[in-house]
């Protein structure tokens, strides 16, 4: 499916900063919290979900064209910022939230303290917990380019990989990748990409949760998914075949089917 259609992209003043926001579709609100690579564009998956939802995709502080307040030094700060952002946009709560990777960690932190914010929660390849087996891939020992490739099971067969990551980068695009890496360092350097307290708080999450994992994810090990599923009372897990860390880009149809089924159920 071609990348689309009816969505808007703008810079707005909200939650104390300038925020880059992409928004499209109609229906109940679906807030998307992106991962450590930022928002590459209006993905096919967003477009398909926009048929059933009002899909709101902000670039989190320090990502994309959203400004970086220096006080944000941790994932808790980002989680608090998300609630502020939703209030400023007058988004009705409870709402549905999808969090990808680093954004999944943000969403999970938020769900432990603000259950009233959520209708349903989807965690995709979520960071935030230390895996019992394996290790979270260390992006910062490798180039941004290598990190992108590792996040896909078969990058060379993925249209959106070619569209957003596999192409020749302009200097500005390459700089934005560095900007995202720096922002990720600022908030998730130590302990690397996980919280020591979150696993203890996950049982407090009362929100129905879908844990989505690429079957070939080598960025966040499957054992992280198991921790989320086992710790959250009302959680189920779905594995997406032929996908790595970015199932929403690599297997968008299967991803959307799983997510839509869960959210509309």
């Amino acid at each position: 499916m071609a990348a689309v259609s009816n969505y808007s992209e703008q810079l707005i003043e909200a939650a104390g900063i300038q925020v880059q926001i992409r928004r499209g579709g109609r229906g109940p609100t679906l807030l998307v919290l992106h991962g450590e690579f930022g928002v590459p564009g209006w993905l096919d998956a967003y477009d398909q979900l926009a048929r059933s939802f009002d899909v709101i995709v902000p670039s989190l502080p320090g990502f994309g064209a959203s400004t970086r307040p220096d006080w944000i030094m941790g994932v808790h700060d980002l989680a608090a910022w998300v609630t502020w952002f939703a209030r400023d946009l007058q988004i009705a709560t409870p709402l549905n939230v999808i969090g990808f990777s680093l954004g999944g960690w943000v969403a999970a932190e938020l769900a432990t303290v603000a259950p009233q914010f959520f209708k349903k929660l989807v965690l995709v390849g979520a960071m935030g917990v230390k895996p019992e087996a394996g290790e979270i891939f260390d992006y910062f020992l490798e180039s941004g380019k290598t990190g992108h490739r590792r996040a896909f099971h078969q990058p060379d067969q993925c249209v959106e990989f070619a569209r957003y990551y596999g192409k020749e980068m302009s200097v500005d695009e390459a700089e934005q990748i560095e900007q995202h890496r720096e922002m990720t360092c600022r908030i998730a350097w130590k302990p690397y990409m996980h919280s020591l307290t979150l696993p203890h708080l996950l049982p407090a999450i009362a929100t129905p949760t879908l844990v989505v994992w690429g079957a070939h994810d080598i960025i966040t090990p499957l054992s992280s998914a198991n921790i989320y599923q086992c710790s959250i009372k009302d959680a189920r897990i779905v594995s997406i075949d032929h996908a790595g860390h970015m199932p929403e880009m690599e297997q968008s149809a299967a991803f959307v089917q799983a997510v839509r089924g869960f959210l509309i159920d």
Partner: protein
Amino acid sequence: MKRQFFYFSEMGYNAYPIEAAEKYGYTNLMFPNSIFDREKARDLWQMFLREHEYASELGFDGAVCNEHHNTVLSMQESVNISAAVLTQRIKGTVALVGNPIPIHDNPVRVAEEIAMLDLISGGRIISGFVRGGGVEQLSTNANPAYNRERFEEAFQLIKKAWTEPGPFRWEGKHYHLRVVNPWQLPLQKPHPPIWAAGILSPETVRWSAKQRITYLVLGSALDATAECRSIYHEVAQADGWTPGPEHLGYLLHTCVMDTDEQAFEMGRHHYGISSGIGRTGVSASSASLTQSTGSAGVTSGGAHPEWASPPGYMTRAARTGAMVKQRRASEGTYEGANRAGLIVTGGSKTIIQKFKHIIDRADPGYLVFWAREGKKPHDATMRGIELLGKEVIPALRGHESALVTGKEVTPWPQ
């Protein structure tokens, strides 16, 4: 001030098999320490320290020591320990260039150790502070995105610990100490001379000028060093003061032997896989990203580009500015590095003329000869030290910079 001449050696672990470096493509951070040979390292320490002693005996004004981690480049994993040893082995000044303060969680410990060194040495310490290389951030898990903030805050805390009566409390962004009250204070008042050092990060040059401290240029080409001097002077003049030679140091790969030809050949050791030149080569992450092929490439100098510049460690300006120009200047070859002045070689007569040219154009108050590197043999190193001490330094001591005299710049020998 009278210009001072210092000796520098990375004291690098040069006993690793070159095949291992070629196999891995790098010689730092993750270069396996199973390759490390303890007995060889013990012998290297004795050789390096003997070379330092000899430089002191031959009239060098002082020595520079430094700190690196997880690398064959330098065996000095604590600059303060190196300095402690050197204060007992040499007569002159010991310049620590320096303590990589962002990697420390308690900068007051650094203040205490420098105070001890200054007291023990009878006030012979210069206290340099550095941000540390990218590898230092990774090997100590210091967040590179906050490197500059931590550097500046640690600097202010250390300076306050030396200059304001304790006890006081420090509640900063990165450092929090309930009671700052180091018992021992440095002998020199108000504190030892402070240097910052770098490889031409324009932010650090400007910051040094703002702090009115000496900026030591680490192994950069002369054109870039002269540019750095101009930036420093512009900032100072905007603040209403005029820097002197004492505000600029220049550390340069130097190889002097009995003839120009011998020196040129021996100088190749300065361009090896453990040399600083490779270290300052490709480090712009964005540069590797804009290339259509390859991902985590490997530089010719034994450093992985992502490790040299982890995220947030360098600004865009630094990544694309002076260092890139410098790499171009060296043309990626030993001969090019010679032409660009990244390595200064020659018999005594030639090298004296080269350094007069350098003094004429940059007027550094401190000229630091990086006179031992790589696998350069001990006897060649000792001969180089002897020629520097007996012929080169005496010839340079009376040479006033053309920047001061207004005379013509000494030509670079052809």
